[in-house]
């Protein structure tokens, strides 16, 4: 579990908004009060099964946080608990320092965007956007102004009189965004909002969502299983797996310095070498592992684990002709066979196999030496680019 948000704790006195739970220390109380959304030991159980298992997460005010994970990892349940659609079995849930675990959904002052848009089909776009304002008993004139502004923001100003069924999927989702933002909620929750749209529209709406986030400055919590979407949108990403959070960090942190093999493999493409830790030797802060007759060196060390893994990103690997001799001890080299070569425009992608059957992915620029299927080659990478992780024996199926 990764501790996050600690850097934001200043010298201020502990707040008094969290009370009644004497077991919390002052630092935790302060963290809860300063957070946009705070989850402490939050658990959701259905019967005996914990769908969300004792998670801690601090989301800063105004932050764009993405909950990323495969289906069934607990990310949507977590979002539903924040929204108030699912009860919290155990733990503390605070929104802007206010305990909300027992508060019904309609009193939490959050906005929510659903994958299927969930626009009211019997109301026009304008009536949909007016709905939350009517619930707040806002004066009519103010309502009209706000509706016009928010439709302007999602670029649907001319579509106010249309019914949802008369709009395209992308337009419907923008109408849903306008409806969820028109009352300036401090928190906006989004549950795979672009999941039902095609790729081009998705990418355009990603940019729109990013722009709107910067415009309104609310805290956004975004659920997706699409790692590219997570990387392009988020300030920080929480990676979920089996009801737990594996790691929280910026896209760069997660991609370049994953804490677990799961995180490394879930974000982006990677090649993974596995070796029992009995073959490892540690020198000068580097670990060297035996892979067959060859040796692979990685920065760092991991003690007390049974099996180790080395993860390298495809863009950090290069392919050389057989007979290539590593320039120095700072370079790893392993003989491989090229299985497929794919031209991507920006460069080439090679799927390669090691002598022991381990597969790997290499991306090379267009000016690098070219290889074809069946060619022998030497795959090389700078020692600094390997990440040493514990191998928990997860499956080998590659994640996209």
């Amino acid at each position, binding site marked *: 579990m990764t501790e996050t948000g600690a850097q934001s704790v200043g010298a201020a006195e502990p707040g008094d908004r969290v009370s009644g739970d004497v077991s919390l220390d002052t630092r935790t109380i302060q963290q809860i009060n300063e957070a946009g959304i705070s989850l402490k030991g939050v658990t959701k159980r259905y019967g005996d099964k914990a769908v969300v298992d004792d998670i801690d997460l601090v989301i800063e005010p105004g932050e764009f946080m993405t909950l990323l994970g495969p289906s069934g990892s607990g990310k949507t349940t977590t979002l539903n608990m924040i929204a108030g659609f699912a009860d919290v079995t155990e733990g503390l849930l605070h929104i802007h320092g206010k305990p909300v675990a027992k508060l019904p*959904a309609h009193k939490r002052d959050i906005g929510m965007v659903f994958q299927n848009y969930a626009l009211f*089909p*019997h109301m026009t776009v304008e009536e949909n956007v007016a709905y939350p304002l009517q619930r707040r008993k806002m004066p009519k004139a103010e309502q009209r102004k706000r509706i016009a502004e928010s439709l302007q923001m999602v670029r649907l100003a001319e579509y106010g009189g249309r019914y949802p069924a008369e709009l395209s999927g992308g337009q419907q989702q923008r109408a849903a965004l306008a409806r*969820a933002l028109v009352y300036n909620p401090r928190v906006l929750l989004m549950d795979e909002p672009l999941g039902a749209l095609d790729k081009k529209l998705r990418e355009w709406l990603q940019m729109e969502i990013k722009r709107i986030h910067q415009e309104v400055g609310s805290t956004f919590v975004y659920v997706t299983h699409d790692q590219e979407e997570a990387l392009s949108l988020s300030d920080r990403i929480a990676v979920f797996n089996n009801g737990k959070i594996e790691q929280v960090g910026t896209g760069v942190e997660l991609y370049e310095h994953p804490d677990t093999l799961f995180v490394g493999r879930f974000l982006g493409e990677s090649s993974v070498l596995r070796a029992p830790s009995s073959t490892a030797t540690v020198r000068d802060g580097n670990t060297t592992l035996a892979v067959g007759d060859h040796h692979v060196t990685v920065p760092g060390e991991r003690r007390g684990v049974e099996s180790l893994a080395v993860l390298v990103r495809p863009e950090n690997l290069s392919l050389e002709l057989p007979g290539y001799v590593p320039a120095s001890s700072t370079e790893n080299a392993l003989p491989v066979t090229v299985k497929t070569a794919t031209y991507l425009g920006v460069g080439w992608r090679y799927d390669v196999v090691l002598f022991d059957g381990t597969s790997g992915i290499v991306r090379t620029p267009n000016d690098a030496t070219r290889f074809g299927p069946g060619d022998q080659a030497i795959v090389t990478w700078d020692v600094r680019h390997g990440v040493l992780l514990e191998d928990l024996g997860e499956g080998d199926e590659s994640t996209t």
Partner: protein
Amino acid sequence: MTMKRVLIAFSVLVIFLLIVPTLVIVPISFNASPSFDFPPKGWSLQWYENFLTDREWLKALGNSVLVAILTAIVATVAGVLASLGLSRLKFRGKSLLENYFLAPMIVPGIVIAIGLYSLFIRLDLLGTIPGFVFAHTIVALPLVIINVMASLQGVDPRLAQAAASLGASKARTFFTVTLPLIVPGVTAGALFAFVTSFDEIILSLFIQDPSLQTLPVKIYRSVTQSTDPTVAAVAVVTMAVSVVVMLAAQLATRKRKALT
């Protein structure tokens, strides 16, 4: 090709057989002589005049309309609430409860009638408007539930979640989102309930007393006791009401399909 013609002929025959006994009553109601002769020997509107001027017939018609309206209201409110619970909540024995609500459609009317009779004697509900409404609601409820449940099936449960996230309480969500979307089903259910009550005879025969009779009961009495063709006129009026209401129900359901 010939096979197709045979099928068409057969279908026409079946339709004909289904509707003839019902339609025979129409010419009889315009009969000039005081008999059930078919075909009639002359034409007149005297039986309709009889019906509309006879205080007893009019009282029975008034009772029927009142009971049918009250039954429609009670059955619709109860049916909508039951449907909401059955479709939106998860609990043990849910399908059992659903079947329980629909049971009056399968249980023979006479069984319900005898049960109600012995119950109503004790509760002093025989020959009262509340007694009629209560009895008719039992048999009308399944029709409301079937129609409303079908409507609710087409309403995405996430709309209620969306309404909650936008600040609407459960009650507010029901009146502003769920109800407007199931109006066609509710309307159809209410109309079915009205017709069911308006036509109901088995339970009514057990519950009626001389001071309070509904139209079907009075028709039955009249047919078994005399050969007054006024009954035919009453039957035609009853049938017309049912047909109009059922057509309205059909229309309501069609609107629902057009919306989604």
